[in-house]
C-alpha cells in the first residue's frame, strides 16, 4: 500500500516535471507522456486531476478525447494491481478494458480488480472545456458545434487563438455564429484593445438571450472601468428585449399546466359532468393508467428494448382497456345501486379509491416506480427566446387531441347520441329502446379510460406512485365545476384559464400563495355564477 502511494506520488511528480520540460521545449507531446498523464489521473486528487485535464487539453492531441469523455461519464477505471488506467465497457459481469489512447482492447477484468476514477463537478467543467478546445477542428459537424458551445460556456483568454483559427476555417453558418460569440466572450477576458472589446460586447448583445446577460455580468465583474457603460447598456438592451419573451414564457407555462389539468379533468367531465356521479376514485384511474405504462415499459425493457421509443404508444391502448374494465366493474358492482344518492356515491367511491391505492401499494410496493421518457420526450428546444420542453409540448398536443376525439365521439357517433339522450331524459330514452343501464356502464367506463389515458401522459412528468391520483382529484373537480358541469367546452376553457392565471400569479405570489389565490378566485366566481363558466341551459338542469 505504502509502496504504491510513493510510486503514485513519484509518478505525479515525474509527470509534472516532464510536462514543464516539454512545455518549454515544444508544444507537442509524445504518446508516452500522454499515457503517463492519463495513468496519473487514477491516483490524483480532484485538484491534481483538474491540472492534468487542463494539460491534456493543452496537448492539442485529439487522441485523449475518448479518455476525457470516459472520465466525465464515470467510465474510466484504474487497475488496482498496476495503476494502469483504462476505458471500460460492460461485458457481462466483467468489464472490458480498452486502452485510453489507442482504443485497442486490453482484455477483461473483474469489477473488484478495478476502481473507478472519481470525478466531481469542477473536474467535469474542466473536462468540458478541454474537450471543447480539442474538438474545434473535428470533421464531424455535431462534434464541432458541441465544442463551440462548450467553449462559449467556459470562456478563457487562452482559447482565443484556437477559436480564431477555427473561425477562419469554419464554413457552417450555425457553428460560425456560435464561434463568433465564443470569440467575443474569450476576447473580453483577454488583453486586447478596448475597441476590440467594445465590438465584442456588441456581438454578444446581438446574440441576445438569458445566457448573454450571464456572460456580460461575468465580464462586468472583472472588466475595465471604461467598458462598464457599454456593458450596462448592452445588458439593459437585452433585458428589454426579454420582457416580451418572459410574458410569452408565462403563457406557455400556463398552457402547459392547463393541458395537464385538462387531461386530468376531462374524464371527470364525463363521469361527474355528464353522469352526475361524484367520483372520488377518478384519481385512482389516472394512477392505474400510469401503472399500466410502467408495466408495459418494464416488459419492453426486459424483452424488446428496441421498442422503447414506442412504449407510450403501446401503453395507451393497454391503459384504456385496463382502466375501462375497472371502471365497468365499479359501475356494475357499486355505483349502479347508488344512482340518485350522491352522498352514498361519494363515500362509496372514496372507499374504492382507498382500496385501489392500497391494492397497488401491496402489489407494486409503496415506492415510486421508474417510468422512462422516450427520447422524443426528453430535452428542450429554443423558439424565439422561449425554452420549450418536448414533454410539455407533446402533452399539450395529446390533451387537445383527446379532447377533440371525445367531442367527436359525443357529437357524431351513435353511442354519443344515446349517451346524450340518456342524460337529457332517461325515461324518454328508455322508451325509445335505448338500454339505459348499459349506456350508463359504458359512459362510466369511457370516463375511466380517458382518465387512464391521462395517466399514461402524466407518468412522463410526475411520480408513478400509489398517491399519484390524489394530487389530481381536487384540481379535476375544480376545473369541472369552474368550467360548468356537463359542458366539455367549459372544461377546456376552465382548464386553460386556471393554468394561465396560476402561472401569472406564481412569479409574484409564490407557488403556495398562488394556489390559494386561485381557490379564492374560484369561490368568488362560483358565488356569482353557481353553474360555472358555461352553464347548461334547458331541461337537463332541472333533472
Amino acid at each position, binding site marked *: 500500500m505504502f509502496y504504491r502511494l510513493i510510486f503514485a506520488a513519484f509518478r505525479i511528480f515525474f509527470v509534472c516535471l516532464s510536462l514543464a520540460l516539454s512545455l518549454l521545449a515544444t508544444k507537442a507531446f509524445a504518446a508516452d507522456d500522454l499515457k503517463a498523464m492519463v495513468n496519473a489521473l487514477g491516483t490524483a486528487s*480532484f485538484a491534481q486531476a483538474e491540472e492534468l485535464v487542463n494539460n491534456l487539453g493543452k496537448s492539442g492531441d485529439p487522441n485523449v478525447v475518448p479518455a476525457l469523455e470516459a472520465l466525465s*461519464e*464515470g467510465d474510466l477505471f484504474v487497475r488496482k494491481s498496476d495503476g494502469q488506467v483504462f476505458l471500460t465497457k460492460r461485458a457481462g459481469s466483467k468489464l472490458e478494458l480498452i486502452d485510453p489512447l489507442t482504443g485497442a482492447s486490453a482484455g477483461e477484468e473483474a469489477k473488484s480488480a478495478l476502481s*473507478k476514477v*472519481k*470525478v*466531481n*463537478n469542477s473536474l*467535469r*467543467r474542466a473536462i*468540458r472545456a478541454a474537450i471543447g478546445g480539442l474538438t474545434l477542428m473535428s470533421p464531424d459537424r455535431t462534434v464541432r458545434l458541441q465544442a463551440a458551445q462548450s467553449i462559449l*460556456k467556459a470562456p478563457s483568454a487562452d482559447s482565443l487563438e484556437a477559436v480564431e483559427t477555427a473561425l477562419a476555417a469554419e464554413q457552417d453558418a450555425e457553428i460560425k455564429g456560435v464561434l463568433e460569440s465564443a470569440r467575443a466572450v474569450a476576447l473580453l477576458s483577454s488583453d486586447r484593445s478596448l475597441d476590440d472589446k467594445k465590438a465584442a460586447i456588441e456581438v454578444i448583445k446581438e446574440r441576445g438571450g*438569458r445566457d448573454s*446577460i*450571464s456572460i*456580460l*455580468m*461575468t465580464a*462586468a*465583474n472583472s472588466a475595465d472601468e471604461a467598458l462598464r457603460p457599454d456593458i450596462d447598456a448592452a445588458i439593459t438592451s437585452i433585458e428589454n428585449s426579454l420582457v416580451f419573451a418572459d410574458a410569452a*414564457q*408565462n403563457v406557455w*407555462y400556463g398552457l*402547459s*399546466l392547463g393541458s*395537464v389539468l385538462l387531461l386530468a379533468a376531462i374524464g371527470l367531465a364525463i363521469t361527474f359532468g355528464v353522469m352526475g356521479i361524484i367520483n372520488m376514485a377518478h384519481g385512482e384511474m389516472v394512477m392505474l393508467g400510469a401503472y399500466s405504462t410502467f408495466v408495459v415499459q418494464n416488459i419492453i425493457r426486459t424483452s424488446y428494448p428496441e421498442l422503447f421509443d414506442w412504449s407510450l404508444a403501446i401503453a395507451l391502448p393497454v391503459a384504456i382497456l385496463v382502466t375501462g374494465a375497472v371502471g365497468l366493474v365499479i359501475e356494475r358492482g357499486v355505483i349502479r345501486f347508488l344512482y340518485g344518492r350522491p352522498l352514498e356515491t361519494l363515500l362509496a367511491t372514496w372507499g374504492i379509491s*382507498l*382500496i385501489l391505492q*392500497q391494492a397497488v*401499494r*401491496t402489489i407494486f*410496493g*409503496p*415506492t*415510486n*416506480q*421508474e417510468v*422512462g*421518457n422516450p427520447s422524443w420526450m*426528453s*430535452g*428542450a428546444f429554443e423558439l424565439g427566446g422561449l*425554452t420549450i*420542453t418536448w*414533454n410539455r409540448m407533446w402533452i399539450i398536443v395529446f390533451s387537445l387531441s383527446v379532447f377533440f376525439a371525445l367531442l367527436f365521439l359525443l357529437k357524431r357517433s351513435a353511442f354519443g347520441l344515446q349517451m346524450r339522450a340518456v342524460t337529457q331524459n332517461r325515461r324518454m330514452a328508455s322508451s325509445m329502446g335505448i338500454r339505459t343501464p348499459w349506456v350508463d356502464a359504458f359512459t362510466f367506463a369511457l370516463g375511466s379510460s380517458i382518465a387512464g389515458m391521462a395517466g399514461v401522459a402524466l407518468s412522463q*412528468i*410526475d*411520480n*408513478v*406512485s*400509489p*398517491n399519484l391520483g390524489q*394530487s389530481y382529484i381536487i384540481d379535476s373537480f375544480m376545473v369541472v365545476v369552474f368550467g360548468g358541469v356537463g359542458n366539455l367546452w367549459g372544461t377546456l376553457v376552465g382548464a386553460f384559464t386556471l393554468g394561465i392565471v396560476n*402561472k401569472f400569479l*406564481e*412569479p409574484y405570489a*409564490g*407557488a*403556495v400563495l398562488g*394556489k390559494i389565490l386561485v381557490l379564492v378566485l374560484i369561490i368568488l366566481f362560483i358565488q356569482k355564477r353557481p353553474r360555472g363558466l358555461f352553464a347548461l341551459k334547458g331541461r337537463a338542469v332541472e333533472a
Partner: protein
Amino acid sequence: MKLKSYVSGALLGAIMSTTAFHGAFAADDTIKVGILHSLSGTMAISETTLKDAMLMLIEEQNKKGGVLGKKLEAVVVDPASDWPLFAEKARELIEKDKVSAVFGCWTSVSRKSVLPVFEELDNILFYPVQYEGEESQRNVFYTGAAPNQQAIPAVDYLAENEGVERWVLAGTDYVYPRTTNKILEAYLISKGVKPEDIMINYTPFGHSDWQTIVSDIKKFGSSGKKTAVVSTINGDANVPFYKELGNQGIKAEDIPVVAFSVGEEELAGIDTKPLVGHLAAWNYFQSVDNDANAEFIKTWQAYTKNDKRVTNDPMEAHYIGFNMWIKAIEKAGTTDPDKVIDAMVGVSVPNLSGGYSSMLPNHHITKPVLIGEIQDDGQFDIVYETPGLVVGDEWSDYLPDSKDLISDWRMPMNCGNFNVAVGKCGGKGS
C-alpha cells in the same frame, strides 16, 4: 383462536389500512419493541422501508440470542400518514402493548404530535430522520442529523469546492425546510453573502409543475456569479423537479443542486442520467466502502429477498439507534424506559460509515457528514467527508432565539432548554 384472530386482523388490515396488526404469537417473556411508521398514505413511500429495516434488525438481534436472555418482539402499527393518529397509536403501543421503546415517525409534525404522549407515559422514542433541530426532549433520541450535521457542511462544501456565491434555498412549505432555511440564511449572511444573493422559494407538498420555478432559478443563476440550489424539497415533489431541471438543460456543472431529502430510495424512481453530478448531503450512503456496510447491505437484500433493494441514511440511523438501545439495556440491566434513558447518554456503537457514533447528553448523536454526487446507476459517489465526527447541535447557534440555549439531560442539569445567558432552565421552545 389464535389463527382466527390473525386472519381477521390481516383482513381488517387489508380493508382498513389504519388497523394495527400485531405479531401472531404474543408471549409474556419477550421484550416488545414498538414500530410506529406509516404503512399507508403519502408517507408510506419512505416509512415502509424503515419498518422493514427495524424488523430485520430485531430478527438479527434475536438470532444473536436477544437481550438480557429474552427475545425481542416487534409490534407494528400503522399510523397511516395521519398526524393525530400517530399520537393515538403511540399511546396504544405504550399502554396496551407495553412496549419498552418505540422506533418511529418521519415528518416533524408527526414527531411533535407524539411528544406529549411519550412525556406523559415516560417511554422512549427513537427518531431516525434528519430534522430542523430547535428541540430536545428527555424521552426522544434523535439519531438523524441536526442542521449542523447536514445542511451547514453541505453549504460549506459548495462555497469552498465549487466557489458558489449565489444561493437558491428551495423547499417544501412546512416546518423542516422553513427552519433549516432560516438557519442557512443566517449562516450565509454571517459568512458575508449579500441578502440579494439569496433567493428563497417554497412550494406546496407534492408540487408537480416546476416550470416557473426552474426558469426562475435559471434567471437567478445568470448574473455571472456561480449559483447553487440548496433543496429541502420533500418526498414526491423531487422527481418532477429533477425531471424539469434535466429537460430545461440545467446541468450540475452549471447550477448544482444539493439536496437534504434525496437518498438512494428516492432516486430509485428516476432515470438518473440527466442528474449526474447533482449532490446530496447525508451521514451515510450505500456506496460507503467498508466491511460493516457490505455486511449490512447483504443482510438487508437477503431479508427483503431483492438484490436491488437499496439502503439509505434513515435506515442507518435506526441501525445506530437500535444498537445503542440494546447496549443501554445491557448497561442498565433492565428494560425500564426511565432507567434506560439515563443509561443511553455516553453509549457508543459502530456506525456504517466506518466509525463510532456516541449518544450525547442532548440526546443527539455524533456522526460524520458525507457529500455525494448522483451517479447514473442511482447511487452516490462520495466526493467529500468531514475530517472528524460532527457533534449534533440541537439549538442552532445562528438563530437569535436559540443561540443561548443548550440541552443536557444528565443530572443535575436535566434540562432540554437551558439558557446560558440567564443561567436558568426554560427558554424559548420546549
